[in-house]
């Protein structure tokens, strides 16, 4: 296994009015190729900002981000656009294009790279099959359930065959049952294609269920990184605190799922 994402000393500050909000304060991270890596933290810990820095939806103040050996922060605008074809992203609110059918949503990334119609069709059908949406291709996202919407989001993110998938709270808006299905899908895709997945979430159970390794982000800093099992069994003192705080939510979710596999 070799290192796929390498983040060094990442800083990001938002200035709103005259206040300065230090969101990331020297984040270091290393993710191996082909693993599912989870980042957990409270809201406001900087998780989403970190994910958004990786494909440069946000520009960090300083630091270094390397993906597959490419220095993301040094890319020109045009090169960045090309590199983004290689980084899929899924969102909490799905962010589907409501003016397009499911087919057209999945086809979008190919369409903007001027891929041939026949080839688009082949790839869209293939990807739709992978996420289990073959019978919904002519539907509009407005008529789909949350789980189906996220499947469209995943298909749209995967259709370019990226090497990395960023998942920004992708299951946080879904009910526990659907969450499990989506997590299963992500695991399956990871196994089939060997794609590296970076999962940002505040749900402990999602990490425990899906990820190989994880990191804990608190107030803009990584306080712990390691194997999911070892962190859950023997957490660092501050991680333990964090766990016990989210435990109540965790327990509630588990009860709702009713012992289905977690």
């Amino acid at each position, binding site marked *: 296994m070799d290192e796929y994402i390498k983040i060094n000393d990442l800083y990001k500050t938002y200035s709103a009015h005259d206040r300065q909000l230090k969101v990331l304060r020297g984040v270091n991270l290393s993710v191996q190729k082909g693993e599912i890596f989870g980042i957990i933290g409270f809201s406001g810990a900087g998780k989403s900002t970190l994910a*958004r820095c990786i*494909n440069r*939806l946000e520009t960090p103040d300083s630091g270094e981000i390397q993906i597959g050996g490419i220095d993301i922060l040094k890319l020109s605008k045009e090169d960045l*656009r*090309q*590199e*983004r*074809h290689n*980084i*899929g*992203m899924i*969102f909490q*609110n799905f*962010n*589907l*294009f*409501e*003016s*397009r059918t499911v087919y057209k949503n999945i086809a*979008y*990334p190919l*369409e*903007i*790279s001027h891929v041939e119609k026949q080839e688009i069709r082949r790839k869209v059908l293939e990807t739709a099959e992978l996420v289990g949406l073959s019978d919904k291709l002519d*539907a*509009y*996202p*407005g*008529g789909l359930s949350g789980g189906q919407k996220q499947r469209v989001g995943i298909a*749209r*993110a995967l259709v*370019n065959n990226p090497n990395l998938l*960023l998942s920004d709270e992708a299951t946080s808006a879904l009910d526990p049952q659907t969450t499990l299905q989506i997590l299963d899908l992500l695991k399956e895709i990871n196994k089939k294609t060997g794609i590296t997945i970076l999962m940002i979430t505040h749900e402990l159970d999602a990490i425990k269920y899906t990820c190989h390794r994880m990191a804990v982000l608190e107030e803009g800093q990584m306080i712990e990184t390691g194997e999911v099992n070892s962190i859950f069994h023997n957490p660092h003192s501050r991680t333990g605190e964090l766990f016990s705080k989210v435990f109540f939510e965790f327990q509630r979710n588990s009860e709702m799922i009713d012992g289905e596999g977690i």
Partner: protein
Amino acid sequence: MSLLDTPLWKVILGSFAPEVWKRIAPSIWETLYMTIVASVIMLLFGVVIGVLLTITNPNGLTPRKTLYSGAGWIINCLRSLPQMIMIILMIPVSRLIFGRSYGTNACIIAIAASCIPMYARIVESSLLEIEKGKIDAAKSIGSSNFQIIWKVLLPETFPSLVRGFTVAIIAVISMTALAGMFGAGGIGDIAVRFGYQRFQHDVLFATVYVLIILVQIVQVLGDLVSRRLLRKRCLL
């Protein structure tokens, strides 16, 4: 027929007489012509300027503070001019383009000049309705700014754009009536010459019917298209 010597009900009845409609028929065409041409011009410029305002916004795709506030300032200046003053101001421009300062075509310039800034603002507010997440998604996929505008921003806000355009067309219609006072012809011209100057209130009433029907058709069509789109997208 005038209300000065005829009872109201007789004037109303008289307003449906064939000779009244024969008189105003050509002016209906003039009004339609002015409305359509001015609306098309307004659509083209309004959408382009509206998109420009949206993307140069400090939170937009390509923030350009000076351009944004400069364009905003000019638009606000133009919008603060009453329509009548705009018509007078545009007289030299019309003369430059058409060689004369009166007539239907000349007034189209004034109507467009007055309605474009308003419509640009309507377009801007429609475009700002888009959820920022969709733009993020389009960016994360590697879209260029042009692709985001053309394939995401405009299609996603299309139902709202249609509704805005409906409002703007109605403003154009009302301005064509005003332009009638300044030699543009059309329904407004008839209303002034017959209804106001000659007290032919049956003709005046007929022009009112025409305007009401015209505005209704536009509004109903606009609502229909917008609702159809939303229903197709399962958003209604």
